[in-house]
């Protein structure tokens, strides 16, 4: 039989594992439940469909929803071609190993930089140096830099799964490099691009510190083109302002609940998408 000491060790380790896992699970369940219980009762059609007005005292988050949507769209429009292009350069063109590792290290570094620093540099570069002022566009461009490594990495991963023989086959038919990339390589990286998009959307939705000084806190109701050139709060920034500066906790929790639902949806679609692609690859 096991000695007392060994039994104690095993028991202790097991207890530590159960407690840690249990604690993590409890935490998640508590967070979700608390946010929903506090937030969902405050979600109303009126809240979702109106803009705030100091005159009538009404609070509506439609502008913030639209701003978030504009930011997501404009960020993706820029980041996808840039990230995919960077990935294609790395996997298809780059021959110099040192250059590749420098670029990869740079990507690694970018993903480690805190969002507050992005916010600051975005403010200096996009808002002041390039003269975009505080605007959704300046915010989006800041987020483009933040999400560039993500899209680049997921695309790179999926390009690695395109068999070399496809490329060889196309080259063997006398196709030029660009044609090979367009016809053989690009179709192969669709799954990486989609995964990268989902991850980026998640990150954009949750971002606040980088947007505070680049996109601002306005709640004006705008169309997309007008919106991009004027300042506006995303849902997260609106949450922060309502909670911290105005003490409107009901609205803050309503936004938190919406963000929580969106996070759940994004995680779910990420899982489904990766499962779908894994299955497709097996066939």
């Amino acid at each position: 039989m096991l000695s007392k000491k060994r039994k104690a060790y095993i028991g202790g380790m097991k207890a530590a594992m159960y407690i840690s896992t249990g604690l993590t699970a409890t935490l998640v369940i508590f967070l979700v439940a608390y946010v929903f219980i506090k937030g969902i009762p405050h979600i109303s059609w009126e809240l979702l469909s109106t803009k705030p007005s100091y005159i009538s005292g009404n609070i509506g988050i439609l502008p913030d929803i639209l701003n978030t949507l504009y930011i997501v769209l404009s960020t993706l429009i820029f980041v996808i071609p840039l990230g995919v292009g960077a990935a294609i350069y790395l996997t298809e063109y780059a021959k110099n190993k040192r250059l590749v590792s420098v670029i990869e290290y740079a990507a690694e570094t970018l993903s480690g930089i805190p969002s507050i620093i992005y916010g600051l540099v975005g403010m200096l570069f996009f808002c002041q140096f390039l003269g975009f002022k505080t605007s959704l566009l300046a915010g989006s461009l800041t987020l483009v830099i933040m999400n560039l490594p993500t899209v680049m990495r997921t695309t790179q991963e999926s390009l690695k799964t395109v068999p070399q023989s496809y490329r060889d086959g196309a080259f063997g038919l006398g196709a030029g490099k660009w044609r090979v990339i367009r016809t053989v390589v690009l179709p192969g990286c669709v799954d990486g691009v989609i995964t990268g998009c989902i991850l980026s959307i998640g990150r954009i939705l949750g971002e606040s510190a980088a947007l505070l000084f680049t996109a601002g806190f306005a709640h004006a109701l705008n169309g997309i083109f007008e919106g991009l050139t004027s300042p506006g709060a995303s849902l997260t920034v609106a949450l922060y302002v309502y909670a911290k500066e105005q003490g409107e906790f009901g609205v803050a929790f309503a936004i938190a609940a919406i963000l929580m639902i969106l996070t759940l949806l994004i995680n779910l679609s990420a899982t489904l998408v990766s499962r779908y692609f894994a299955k497709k690859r097996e066939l």
Partner: protein
Amino acid sequence: MSDIMTAKDLSLWYDKTQALKNVNITIPEKSITAFIGPSGCGKSTFLKTLNRMNDLIPSVKIIGEVCYNGQNIYDNSVDVNELRREIGMVFQKPNPFPMSIYDNIAYGPRTHGIKSKVKLDEIVEQSLRDAAIWDEVKDRLKKNALGMSGGQQQRLCIARALAVKPKILLMDEPTSALDPISTSRIEELAIELKKSYTIVIVTHNMQQAVRISDNTAFFLLGELIEYGETEKLFSQPTDKRTEDYITGRFG
């Protein structure tokens, strides 16, 4: 020579596929018993039933008995960890832990509660000597074991198994990943070790079985076809299938 292990009507299933069919065998103490047969015949599976390593695969079902010193090792009262301490195992691919040579050998004794440095030093040296590798490594005991050659790694794994003072040593194709020189050193070592240990070795190499074993068991499609003294089995097999196999007609 007395018998140390006996299997009675042992059958084993992976899910619905039967991998072993009513195996009956007795293994004598302080000798080398070889299991031969074509790949997929169940010889490795059977070896792993002898120290219950198959327990780790969730879908496995076993019926029948394996008795070690008269006790059925599949009995509920048996402590698997104690059993595996007494019945050691050496694997096909050398698998030293990614730690120092010293820590590899000391791992087993430490697990079983030996803390004293003096005692551990003693065990480490003795085990490495028994595995005939002491002279090669005594000056670099603190170096990472993964820096050794494949043959040295395998002898280190044997030393590691010896460090917990087992009675039986199960070897699952221990030389299949090694070069001929390393192989012959392991074979010499096995012959040396049988003075104090019972050795059961699975091998796909019939010459190896002839060179080192006292008894040989021939497996085919999950069945034990023939079992007897090695010399006799290879010179006058009684079963046609054994004869076909050892004369190289299949496998």
